[in-house]
């Protein structure tokens, strides 16, 4: 089932240039080239391109395709992908922070490197290095908090298990403890992120995950309050169809769709699924 789903996702996302060091795990990794990430006002698309042993980061106008700014970084850093449908992240809602990162390589002694850029100038504000394998998950609207998926490694690791962690971007320090659903603190976090929708103010990130042996769930992360909720969502679709499911957050609800068909609606206040 998992293999079929991953294959479906890879086929669905074949047009997207994905460089994932972590394979088909809970983090899709990073993207070079398009789609990059588009600013909230829709005026700029930020893309990262491999250039020899470095990376060219560019701000491209969405009207005209003009490269307004570019900067060369040593090492390979890509735009974070947050779901296998090609959804990307890394740009703060207030437009003042752009995060690129380089996933850890290997199961042990790996380091994950982040670069924090000012999108207006593409100047590097800070560089952060974490020991271990992390994937980018979300940014708070003001860019001060970054949410990461800490990928579990070790002999018993399934490759799909992770913990959601918060990092203070200003200090570069991981905040203690994992972000869990307090209603089910012992629930093991596992799965593959299929698609994502965000609230208009970017304070909520809703991610649809598939799980081996269990039904899909939506991970609702409040990126300002450092809170998360896991919502089981029975969708009654095949694995291949699941790879084509999309999600959109609107006022008071999150709608999960397959094509034009609404599969489920989540009330964002009560987390009730209809």
């Amino acid at each position, binding site marked *: 089932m998992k293999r079929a789903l991953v294959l479906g996702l890879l086929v669905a996302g074949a047009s997207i240039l994905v460089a994932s060091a972590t394979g088909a795990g809970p983090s899709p990794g990073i993207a070079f080239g398009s789609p990059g990430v588009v600013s909230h006002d829709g005026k700029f*698309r930020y893309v990262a391109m491999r*250039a020899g042993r470095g990376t*060219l980061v560019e701000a*491209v106008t969405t009207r005209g395709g*003009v490269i307004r700014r*570019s900067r060369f970084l040593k090492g390979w850093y890509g735009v974070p992908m947050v779901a296998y449908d090609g959804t990307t992240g890394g740009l703060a809602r207030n437009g003042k922070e752009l995060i690129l990162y380089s996933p850890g390589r290997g199961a042990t002694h790996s380091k994950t490197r982040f670069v924090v850029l000012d999108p207006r100038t593409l100047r590097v504000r800070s560089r952060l290095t974490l020991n271990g394998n992390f994937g980018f998950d979300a940014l708070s609207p003001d860019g001060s908090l970054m949410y990461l998926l800490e990928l579990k490694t070790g002999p018993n690791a399934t490759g799909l298990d992770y913990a959601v962690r918060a990092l203070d971007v200003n200090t570069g320090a991981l905040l203690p403890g994992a972000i869990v659903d307090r209603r089910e603190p012992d629930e093991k976090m596992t799965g593959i992120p299929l698609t994502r929708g965000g609230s208009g103010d970017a304070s909520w990130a809703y991610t649809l995950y598939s799980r081996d042996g269990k039904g899909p769930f939506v991970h609702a992360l409040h990126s300002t309050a450092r809170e998360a909720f896991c919502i089981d969502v029975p969708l009654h679709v095949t694995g291949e169809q699941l790879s084509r499911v999309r999600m959109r957050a609107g006022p008071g609800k999150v709608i999960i769709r397959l094509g034009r068909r609404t599969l489920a609606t989540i009330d964002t206040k009560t987390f009730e699924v209809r």
Partner: protein
Amino acid sequence: MRRALALTFVLAAAWAAVAAADGGGPSPGPTWGPPGVLDAGSGTRYVALVGGNTTVVEAVATRGGKVLRWTSLHGMLGFPMVAWDGSMGGMSRDREHLVLASPQGAARWTRFVLLDAATLKVLAHARLRGSWAFDALSPTGSLMYLIQYLGSRGSVNQPYAVRAFSWDTGRLYAGAIVDRREPDEKMNGQPVTRAGSPSGWAYTLYSRNGERPFVHALDTTHRRAFCVDLPWRNSPNWIAVVKMRVRGGTLELRRDRRTIARMDRKTLDVR
């Protein structure tokens, strides 16, 4: 007038900067970043950017700004600017080929790379001894016209020769492309602006210090050229803001949206 003056200053400054960088000469040389080369028909902008010792060539959609395809090339290569008003070259009229050039005068050799525009795959390389600059491409891209610098390194406004290079054979054609009516005329001047015709003519307006400006009419299909003097005694400052356009059998020279001269493209008469 103020705009014209400002542009003149800008051009003069750019001129000086390039003169200092590449020893001076008739070509603005390769460029990096915007605006790149625009294929308005397909809505694609081709741009070259340098990072480290690598050039990234990108095809960017003008609607949406998506990077449609991209490739990395070793070394420093840019899309050629062919006139000081920012006119860009390097794309064949059939939109199938792209040419990038290394900076002229930066090394003992000048490099050119021919790319397939649809895939950005490298089709051919050319390496020429000395200082060269890109001038034009034939409509199918099989012929490349180059400016060969003839002066000593570092000299400003140095004389040059227009040469033809075949991408099919990878060789230069013997001899320079000259106006056969005046084969001994020394080529010099600075390209102000460029206009092209669908049949493959490249018209370049040149200004010269203390001399009449002229139009260099290059037939990129048949490897022939004509120099057409314009009816002004010197190259006035305002020549920097003149634009050209091809309208049927006429090349129009325009200033402030008014046509100030017309050149018959067949007889080369200027009115």
